[in-house]
């Protein structure tokens, strides 16, 4: 499939090219919606489609006014601040708890491992609307509903499965004799963890943290129910914006968020290559 052999029949030739065209169309379907909002976010008009000026590449058709609105509108700024206050704290909690637990889970004798694993992974499996409903009921009972910490704890809980999965995956390739070697040289378990184990599993920890971060940063269902007006995050503001009156500022915000995802993707790709190199595999 990778290349067309010289003896291919006309039918094979046709299929080969039409298959590529089909795949090209599907790739187009995947990427076009994300790319199309980038130029539209520079629209000088309040339209959601390309104006005549934009299509003729007239500079008058383009402007930064939607970006300007995002950076000056107090609602959006407050939402940005809230997102920045919530996501990193939730990520920190999820990563700290998750990494320690993953180290524990990778030990050779863990009682009730499947049951524990099922509980720890459950926040990822249960549909968000159910998590949100349950958390809303329970957190209102204990007075956490509508508070900053309520949202942070909920987001941390949702992020932990990703940390567990990524860190456990890196620990699979971890040579346990390194720990014994370190202990035999007189290091206590804490020193061993930070000096020997941590540097080797750091790609897993970082990619888990990134997953936890994006889970919190992108999360809207739980925050819609658990948060009050004081915890309005960026996705929440986008959600209300899309539902009530759709303002083109959303496109500017969306474009900025695409830039963030590209940055995250790049970091992850670099980490993947590093860990492949460490394991003696050549990066592709």
């Amino acid at each position: 499939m990778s290349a067309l052999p010289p003896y291919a029949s006309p039918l094979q030739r046709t299929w080969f090219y039409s298959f590529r065209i089909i795949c090209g169309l599907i790739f187009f379907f995947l990427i076009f919606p994300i790319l199309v909002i980038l130029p539209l976010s520079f629209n000088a008009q309040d339209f959601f489609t390309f104006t005549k000026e934009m299509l003729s590449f007239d500079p008058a058709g383009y402007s930064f006014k939607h970006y300007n609105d995002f950076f000056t509108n107090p609602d959006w700024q407050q939402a940005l601040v809230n997102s920045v206050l919530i996501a990193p704290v939730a990520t920190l909690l999820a990563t700290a708890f998750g990494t320690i637990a993953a180290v524990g889970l990778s030990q050779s004798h863990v009682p009730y491992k499947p049951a524990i694993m099922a509980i720890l992974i459950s926040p990822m499996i249960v549909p968000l609307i159910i998590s949100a409903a349950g958390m809303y009921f329970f957190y209102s009972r204990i007075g956490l509903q509508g508070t900053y910490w309520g949202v942070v704890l909920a987001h941390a809980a949702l992020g932990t499965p990703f940390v567990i999965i990524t860190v456990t995956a890196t620990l699979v390739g971890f040579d346990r004799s390194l720990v014994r070697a370190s202990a035999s040289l007189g290091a206590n378990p804490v020193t061993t963890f930070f000096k020997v184990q941590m540097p080797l599993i750091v790609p897993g920890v970082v990619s888990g943290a990134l997953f936890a971060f994006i889970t919190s940063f992108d999360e809207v269902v739980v925050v819609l129910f658990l948060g009050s007006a004081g915890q309005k995050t960026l996705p929440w503001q986008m959600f209300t914006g899309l539902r009530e009156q759709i303002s083109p500022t959303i496109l500017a915000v969306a474009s900025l968020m695409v830039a963030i995802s590209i940055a995250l993707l790049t970091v992850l790709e670099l980490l993947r290559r590093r860990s492949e190199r460490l394991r003696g595999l050549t990066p592709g």
Partner: protein
Amino acid sequence: MSDTTDNGQVLTTQDGKPLKAALRRALRREKLRAFLLIAPLLIFVLITFVAPIVDMLFRSVENSIVADTLPKTVIELNKWDSSSGEAPGEEVYAALYDDMLIAVDLKTHTRLGSRLNYEQSGISSLFRKTGRRIKRMDEDGPFKDQFIGADKKWGEVETWQVLQQFSPRYTDGYFLNAFDAQRGPEGIEMKPENEQIYMFLFGRTLFLSIVITLSCLLLGYPIAFLLASLPLRTSNLLMILVLLPFWTSLLVRTSAWKVLLQQQGVINDFLVWTRLIDDAGRLVMINNQTGTIIAMTHILLPFMILPLYSVMKTISPSYVRAAKSLGANDWTAFWRVYFPQSVPGIGAGAILVFILSIGYYITPELVGGTSGIFISNRIAYHISSSLNWGLAASLGTLLLVAVLVLFVVYDKIVGIDNVKLG
């Protein structure tokens, strides 16, 4: 394993302890250490996540509001025979008077009214009205006539039947409601056709999830096949086109589709410009099922491609070559040799997409209109708008059961430990 040497001596460690005991102690210590490492997260998840879910399950059957607000009435009412066709006797009304006096002071009678209003409309206003009149009633009775004087609904058997039916602390009423059933005079019966909405919504959620899963499979299979057969350098590059949508915010993608699919949006403008449709015939692609299917297929497609790709990577190309060398044509080689080996990937991807789509809320809410919404939208409506939390909880419980069953299947096919990310 024997712990004695040939001459019958018990093996010991250097400091004289029996070897078996020492090993057992070491193992116990290791178990304890592993458990201590896991415990913080386990406790954290149990409190922040599992407890809320259990609370929701509990709320779907919990119903102590009647017994808490009208404790004396409930006791007296237990003696009343609802099939007698007559309203209960004076002692029940006397108990109701005592209970209502306290309830009005605590202002809990309106809450009880709105709770019982889910079961029979009109009860909310009955309690409100009685609450206003209760202070003016004669303390010495007779209470029955005074209550019926306040509102003649107190003299009707149906009102008392509802009260009696919901006086136990646990109820299956929410679940009956979620199944579009109710408790009639002859036991459990289905609601009238025009009031059956939840089973219909569950059906639609299932149907749309299946359609979305199938279209993801249809679009994802060729892509995964292409990525798995291309040289690593090219496929890594193309993989970015799959991973970028995967990493992009859900709301960004939903807003993109909102922009594209609108009647004044990019796709319609393009179609008008190419004269495929005229200006009056702009396609309605949003706020209906089409919108939900298109947007959700796009959002969930990476979840199909990634598991398919990881399975297809492991299929050795020599099998297909062997099939061809034995005389199979391209199609036979693919269908009889390659495809069966990719089935585990199809299973993994399809169940993953299905689990994710069945509980989706945001995208249907934004692009689904009324015909494209899922059961989750109804749950959200009952939590935030109608405030019928018990019904929301029972609908949520049903959805949770469906997802967990699917997940057990997923675990059997793929294994919970084999979930790969990125």
